[in-house]
């Protein structure tokens, strides 16, 4: 019990600290690639710190849902973060649920965020919520198909089991089914984290915004919680991608030396994936909203083909 609490504490700390850093790194890399100076990589920490100290403005029309949504978003993201293996193959909460719990906890967070957007009755909030739901309705099955491919070759939906089996068959990521699943999941990652071909994370001045439209009414600590939750969700999805497909360096146990090495490998893999995201964001223009389902249809087909090809090979 105490051991599990200690593990959870460690992983939670890692989660809370790395998530804003990762957003910062992506922001800075993106700016550098576009030959701008851009913000510091610690800017997200400063933003969070500033927002947490500020007062809040709550609209008169808002009900309790408006205040509950930020906590739900943050707590579900953090809970999911404890269920996935980060530096070691054993996640602290791995007994509480497998990949289905992860997907649906994320969906729960998104559901409350959409409700929070609708709750104030402002037109932008409703617009953002409806868009978010439209996109997630297609992104979610694509994500499931891709993840099930990995689960199938590991014979388990438990994420720690999946990571362990991936470590034991180190060349498995070269299999075509894994590659197809990875491409599908990468598109889903872009859509779920609101990156450029789907949504623009840098601005709330665009009529086609999705995430920013939902949180337009939030301010102060609530906004900080939502932003922090969103960056944790991004970290969780990226971790899912790097650790289930490229499990190099995952420590099989919770020893100090193993964890240290695992952490180094983990951060390095995250950095590589962040570079890929930055490249995609810089080389693409934002899609028209009605074109987004086409992109997600490609992700869905890739996931479906991946699942089918595991049966055929």
């Amino acid at each position, binding site marked *: 019990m105490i051991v599990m609490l200690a593990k959870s504490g460690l992983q939670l700390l890692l989660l809370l600290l790395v998530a804003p850093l990762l957003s910062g790194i992506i922001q800075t890399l993106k700016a550098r690639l576009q030959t701008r100076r851009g913000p510091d990589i610690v800017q997200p920490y400063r933003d969070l710190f500033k927002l947490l100290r500020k007062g809040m403005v709550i609209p008169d029309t808002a009900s309790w849902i408006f205040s509950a949504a930020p906590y739900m978003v943050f707590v579900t993201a953090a809970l999911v973060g404890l269920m996935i293996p980060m530096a070691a193959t054993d996640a602290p909460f791995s007994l509480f649920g497998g990949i289905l719990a992860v997907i649906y906890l994320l969906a729960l967070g998104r559901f409350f965020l959409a409700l929070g957007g609708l709750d104030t009755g402002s037109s932008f909030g409703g617009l953002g919520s409806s868009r978010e739901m439209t996109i997630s309705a297609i992104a979610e099955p694509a994500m499931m198909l891709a993840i099930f491919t990995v689960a199938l070759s590991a014979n388990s939906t438990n994420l720690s089991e999946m990571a362990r089996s991936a470590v034991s068959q180190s060349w498995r990521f*070269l*299999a075509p089914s894994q590659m197809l699943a990875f491409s599908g999941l990468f598109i889903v990652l872009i859509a779920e984290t609101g990156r450029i071909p789907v949504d623009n994370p840098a601005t709330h001045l665009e009529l086609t915004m999705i995430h920013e439209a939902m949180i337009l009414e939030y301010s102060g600590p609530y906004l900080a919680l939502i932003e922090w939750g969103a960056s944790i969700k991004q970290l969780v999805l990226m971790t899912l991608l790097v650790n289930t497909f490229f499990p190099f360096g995952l420590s099989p146990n919770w020893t100090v030396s193993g964890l240290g090495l695992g952490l180094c490998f983990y951060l390095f893999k995250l950095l590589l994936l962040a570079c890929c995201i930055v490249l995609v964001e810089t080389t693409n223009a934002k899609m028209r909203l009605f074109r987004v389902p086409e992109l997600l*249809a*490609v992700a869905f*087909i890739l996931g479906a*083909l991946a699942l*089918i090809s595991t049966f055929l090979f």
Partner: protein
Amino acid sequence: MSFLHDPQFGDRMITLMAALVLVLQIAMVGQRWLMTNIRMFALQSFLLATIAGTIAFFNHAEHVYIAALLTLFLKAGLLPYLLVRLVKRVGIQQEIEPLINVPVSVLISGGLTLVGYIVGDSFYHPEETSAAAALGHNTLAIAIALFLIGFFMMLNRRKALTQVLGLLCMENGLFLAGISLTYGVPLVVEFGIFFDLLVAVMVLGILVYRIGETFDSMDVSKLRRLRG
């Protein structure tokens, strides 16, 4: 570098690259911009050349190197260059308008891939454990899928130039099938196919240009009308 002599490693690399070729093909169906489509075709041909090179290396089949080099220079270099020049010269609208909308097209290509796998599976006999049979299994399925999707791309598009792209994708599928099953057709035939393709693209280029000049559009459905 012991893994360089391990045929299993070569097999894995070939299957992986073939899967990437398939991903590119589906992305081409889902992509609306003509220039990006041409670039994707170039990338796909480059991957094919790499597959051919890998097969040549692991099976010590020297003549396949020539096919690989030809693919690299012609299909990944010259043909995309010619197509890009044509697009710039004709000054056509750059967006592809498929007959069937994109999500459904992508779904259909997924179904066609499945057909490819089912057809490819009937050629697979696990009791023959020679290297060629093992190699053919995955790549043949992908090659048939490429062929079918290329055919579908030709049917699905209105503009003459985009139909040329479909034709080239079909040829890529044939090349992959040939190279994965039999380590390439004889070199003379290979030369013939490449020359054929080059001439075809040049002639089609001129044709497309003429269509554009005469009809002010490259929409082949307008070819029904007679003009003096």
